[in-house]
């Protein structure tokens, strides 16, 4: 059983604040919003439970992504990975976006969302998902191309 209030807790808090965003977005992009959120929560819970090990890892984010992946595969897959755009968001988000995202492969979604949407570097994404930078770049380019094609976007405004 873990301690309740010690330096580890503070260290873990800092770790979660730093790691959780890309983990959440990557798993959501890969497995959908619902499954991604559950997988992220489980991965971080696992990290806290095994904090002695996780804190010494050189790439804990990548390891936890794999933990999340393992758990996500066990969950029931919802029929709709990405919910429709809320009416109030329609002026800024194209209604076609969720369906267009569903058309991409899992790796293409992760690369496009993290790099093109959230501004992570290719190296950060490569470390997170365990791919080479070149592979990540390829997924990004192909994913963007397909996304634009599906949404009928010719020029990014």
């Amino acid at each position, binding site marked *: 059983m*873990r301690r309740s209030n010690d330096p580890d*807790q503070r260290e*873990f808090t800092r770790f*979660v604040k730093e790691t*959780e*965003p890309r983990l*959440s*977005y990557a798993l*959501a*992009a890969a497995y959908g*919003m619902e499954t*991604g*959120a559950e997988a*992220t*929560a*489980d991965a*971080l*819970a*696992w*990290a*806290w*439970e*095994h904090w*002695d*090990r*996780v804190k*010494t*890892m*050189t*790439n*804990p984010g*990548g*390891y936890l992504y*794999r*933990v999340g*992946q*393992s*758990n996500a595969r*066990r969950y029931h897959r919802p029929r709709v990975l*990405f*919910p429709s*755009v*809320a009416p109030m*968001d329609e002026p*800024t*988000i*194209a209604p076609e*976006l*969720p369906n267009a995202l569903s058309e991409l492969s899992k790796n293409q979604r992760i690369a*496009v*969302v993290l790099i*093109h*949407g*959230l*501004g992570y570097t290719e190296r950060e994404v490569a470390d997170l998902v*365990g791919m080479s930078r070149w592979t990540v770049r390829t997924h990004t380019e192909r994913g963007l191309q397909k996304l634009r094609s599906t*949404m009928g*976007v010719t020029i*990014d*405004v």
Partner: protein
Amino acid sequence: MSDLGTQLRSYFDENVERVTPEDVLAGRHVGDLMPEPRFKWRASPRLAVGLGFAVTVLVLGGSLGLGLALRQPGDISGSGRMTFGVGDGTPESTGWWLVGVAAALAAIALVFIVLAIRSARTGSKRNGEEKTMSTTFETQEVDHKLEDAHRANRWLIAAVVVLSVALIALGAWVISDLTAASENAVPDDVAEMLDDYHAAWNTGDGDAFMLLVREVDYEHTANGTSHTAAGAADIIDAYWGPDGIHVEHIGESVLLGDGSTKYVVQPNRVFTPGYPDGMVGFSILKVTEFGDSGWLVIDHTFIGDWIR
């Protein structure tokens, strides 16, 4: 409408359910019930080489084994040269060394596969796990054993098991094939009669010899020189002179033909005692089952050449 990047960010910001450190710290202790991350298999060059070796062994061994199975004893090669051995009377066989070669190659393949598995297991060092293991070894020894078991890729294990079973089956098949009686093997009663026939020949026992041939039509031909049974005495004169001609089996005999009349082909060496070389060739013995007399020789043709 904003650009695609902004849309993606907005959409995910709106829909992704974030997890805070407080959520985790206040949450359930589910870690114990959760599985370890699944090992992600990565192609390894060493694994590829190992599997390549194994497949080569199976294909090569299978082909050679099949060739052995289809080859008839006493085969004559494409050049027309007879292939049985001369000297110590032991027939040549490619089957036994095949088993040795297959076993050696399989051992090499196994080494490669084991190296590949070890390499794959340490592949998780990309995520820094190796460092973790080295720093917490003493306290988490049991955990590590469990991790290793989880991480051992089931497909690699299956491949090793399948290849091992296939190799054992191949070896068993080759050995079984080499030791099994051929459908062209000479039956015991015929072989026994022919042994007596050659023993009578070698000892010059005319009476015993005449009991084993059908006198009315027995004919002996050696490299074109023929003698008939009507003149069994001629045969004795011709072949059992002062020095005598001895026959020595130097290979496996083969039985050909159906029904009561059959042909036995024997690789033989024919020589005169005191003269070391002599001739090697084939004796083709036409034998028939003749009532109470049992198997009798009715024709004996020897085709051979001098040992040089």
